[in-house]
C-alpha cells in the first residue's frame, strides 16, 4: 500500500481549473517531486494534501485512510513553506518547539514519552543550527531560516513532509549545495518528502520519482531516467530537457553525433557553434531544412559554420511521445 495516495483530485477556482483529476501515489521513504511550469497547480496540489484547501472531488489517503476533509492540524503531514513562514515573535528554538505542544492531539501513541527538549536539541543538531537557537527569524539568513523551517517540521516526525519550492528563496549559489544537503537529510531521517519545483534539474537530481504537471493535469509519473528518456508527451519531453523534433520523434541534443566524413546519418550544414565550457552546441540545418542542435562533450575536430557534416543518432535514443 502506498503511503500517500492522491486519487482523482480536482480543485476549481472561479473560472479556472487549478487541479484537474490528478492521481498519483508516494511510497514510504521516497522523495517525490511535483514538477511543472508556473501556474500549473503544483502549490494547489500541495495545499490540498496539507489541508489548507478542500478538493471539489476526489480523495486523499494517508496509510490508506481518507484524510480528504480533515483540518490541517489533524493530519500527520507537515509543510515547509516557500517563504518559510517562521513565527517572527519566537526564537528559532521556540519555532521548532511550537508543534510539540500540540502533538498529543495528533497521535496518542507517541505522546510525551520522549523528552521534548531532547528532541528539539537533536533536530537542531541535525540541521546544524544549535548555535543559532536563540536568534529571532529576522536575524537569520535565508539558508538558516530554511533549516529552522525544516527542523520545525521534522521534529514532529511527519508521515510526509511537503516542501513548496524549498530552494527558490535561496541565493542561486547556495541552491546546488542545499540540494545535496536536503537529499542527504531525507535519506538520514527516512522521512517521505513531497517536493514542489519548477526546476527540472532539481527534480531530476533529487527525486526518486517525478510527477510532471501541466495546466492542472498530471501528464506523467515515473523515475527520473524513465521520464527523461521515455516521455509520454511532448510537453514532458520538452520540460525535462532540450529536444530536437524531427519527423514526429524527438532526439536529445546529447544523443546527436556530428561527423565530418561519416557514411551513416543525414547530410547537414553547420549554422552555428557555441562553446559552453564543458561542451559545445552545434546547430545544423538538415537537407530538408529542419534544424537540429547537437551537444558534444569532447569535439574531436573543430567545427565551423558552413562545414558540411553528417548527423546521426541511435534508434533507441529516439523518443516517440504519444501526444
Amino acid at each position, binding site marked *: 500500500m502506498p503511503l500517500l495516495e492522491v486519487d482523482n483530485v480536482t480543485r476549481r477556482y472561479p473560472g479556472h481549473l487549478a487541479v484537474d483529476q490528478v492521481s498519483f501515489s508516494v511510497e514510504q521513504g521516497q522523495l517525490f517531486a511535483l514538477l511543472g511550469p508556473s501556474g500549473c497547480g503544483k502549490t494547489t496540489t500541495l495545499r490540498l494534501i496539507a489541508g*489548507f484547501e478542500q478538493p471539489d472531488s476526489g480523495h486523499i489517503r494517508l496509510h490508506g485512510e481518507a484524510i480528504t476533509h480533515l483540518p490541517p492540524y489533524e493530519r500527520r503531514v507537515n509543510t515547509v513553506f516557500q517563504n518559510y513562514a517562521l513565527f517572527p*515573535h519566537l526564537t528559532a528554538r521556540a519555532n521548532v518547539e511550537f508543534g510539540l505542544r*500540540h502533538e498529543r492531539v495528533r497521535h496518542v501513541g507517541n505522546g510525551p514519552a520522549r523528552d521534548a527538549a531532547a528532541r528539539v536539541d537533536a533536530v537542531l543538531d541535525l540541521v546544524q543550527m544549535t548555535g543559532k537557537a536563540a536568534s529571532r527569524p529576522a536575524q537569520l539568513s535565508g539558508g538558516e531560516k530554511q533549516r529552522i523551517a525544516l527542523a520545525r517540521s521534522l521534529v514532529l516526525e511527519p508521515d510526509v513532509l511537503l516542501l513548496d519550492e524549498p530552494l527558490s528563496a535561496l541565493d542561486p549559489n547556495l541552491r546546488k549545495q542545499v540540494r545535496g544537503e536536503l537529499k542527504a537529510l531525507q535519506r538520514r531521517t527516512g522521512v517521505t518528502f513531497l517536493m514542489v519545483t519548477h526546476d527540472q534539474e532539481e527534480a531530476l537530481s533529487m527525486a526518486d520519482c517525478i510527477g510532471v504537471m501541466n495546466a492542472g493535469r498530471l501528464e506523467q509519473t515515473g523515475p527520473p531516467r524513465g521520464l527523461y528518456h521515455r516521455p509520454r508527451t511532448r510537453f514532458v519531453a520538452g520540460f525535462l530537457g532540450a529536444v530536437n523534433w524531427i519527423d514526429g520523434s524527438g532526439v536529445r541534443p546529447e544523443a546527436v553525433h556530428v561527423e565530418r566524413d561519416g557514411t551513416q546519418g543525414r547530410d547537414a550544414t553547420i549554422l552555428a557553434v557555441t562553446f559552453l565550457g564543458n561542451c559545445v552546441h552545434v546547430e545544423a540545418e538538415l537537407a530538408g531544412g529542419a534544424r537540429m542542435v547537437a551537444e558534444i562533450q569532447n569535439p574531436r575536430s573543430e567545427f565551423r559554420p558552413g562545414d558540411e557534416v553528417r548527423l546521426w543518432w541511435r534508434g533507441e535514443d529516439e523518443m516517440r511521445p504519444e501526444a
Partner: protein
Amino acid sequence: MKPRTWFLLPARTVMLLLFAVPMLIVAAYSLLTRGAYGGQGAPWTLANYARLLDPLYLEILLKSFWIAALATALCLLLGFPLALFIARARTRKTLWLALVTLPFWTSFLVRTYAWMFLLRDTGLINTILLGLGLISEPLPLLYNDAAVVLGLVYGYLPFTVLPIYAVLDRIGPELLEAAEDLGATPAQVVRRIVLPLARPGLLAGAVLVFVPCLGAYLTPDLMGGGKSILIGNVIQNQFTNARDWPFGAALSAVLMVIVMGLLLLVRRKTSEHGGLP
C-alpha cells in the same frame, strides 16, 4: 541650520503652540487663587492641589479610572474579533472599514442623543417591550453607569478596531497556516500567534480609548444623568457653573500627569520587546 532642523520646524512650532503652551497655562492657573466673583489672581498657592485629597474627589477619580478601564476592556474585547474578521475577509475589506468609520460622519452629540432616544423610559426599546407585554415597568436603561459605559464603548470602538486591524492585516496568512500545519487548532492559532503579534495594535487601541474615556464628560453627563459623575464632569463644572478655574486647572493637571505616566509605561512595555511581545 541643517535641513533636518528646517523640516522639523513646522512640527515643532505646532507642538509648542498647541501642546506645550496650553499645558503651561493650565499649570500656571492651577497655582492661582480663585477670585470672589470668579476670575483668578494672586497669591500663588498649592491650596487647589490640597483640595484634591478630599475623599470625594479621590472617589470620583477612582470611579473614572474604573469606568474608563471597563470601557477600554470592552472595546478591546469587541474590537479584536471585529478587526480580525475584517483583516481575514477576502473581499469587501474597504466596505467593512468604511462601516466602522461611518459613525464619524455625524456629530458625537447627535449620536449620543440617538442612544438616549433608544434607551430612555419612553424610548424605543422600552416602548416595544411594554407594547409586547414582556415587561410591565420600563427597564432602567438610561441614567446609570452601565449606560455611560455603553455610550463610551459605542463612541470609541473604532479607535480600537483601526489600530488592531492595521497590525492584523500585516500578519501573512501563511503564518496562520503554518501554525495550523504544526497542529494548532484555530483557537490556539489566535492565542499563540495572532494575539502576540497583535500586541502593539492592542496597546495602541487601549491607549486611544482609555485616555479620552478618562476625561470624558459629554457621555456621562447625558447618559449618566446626574447620577454618574466622572472626573471630566467635575473639571467641566469648575470651568462653567462653579467658576473655579484654578481648581479645574489643578484637576486637569493631575489627570494629565497620570495619563502621561501611563503612556510612558506603555511605551516602555512596547519598546522593551522591540515592538514585539
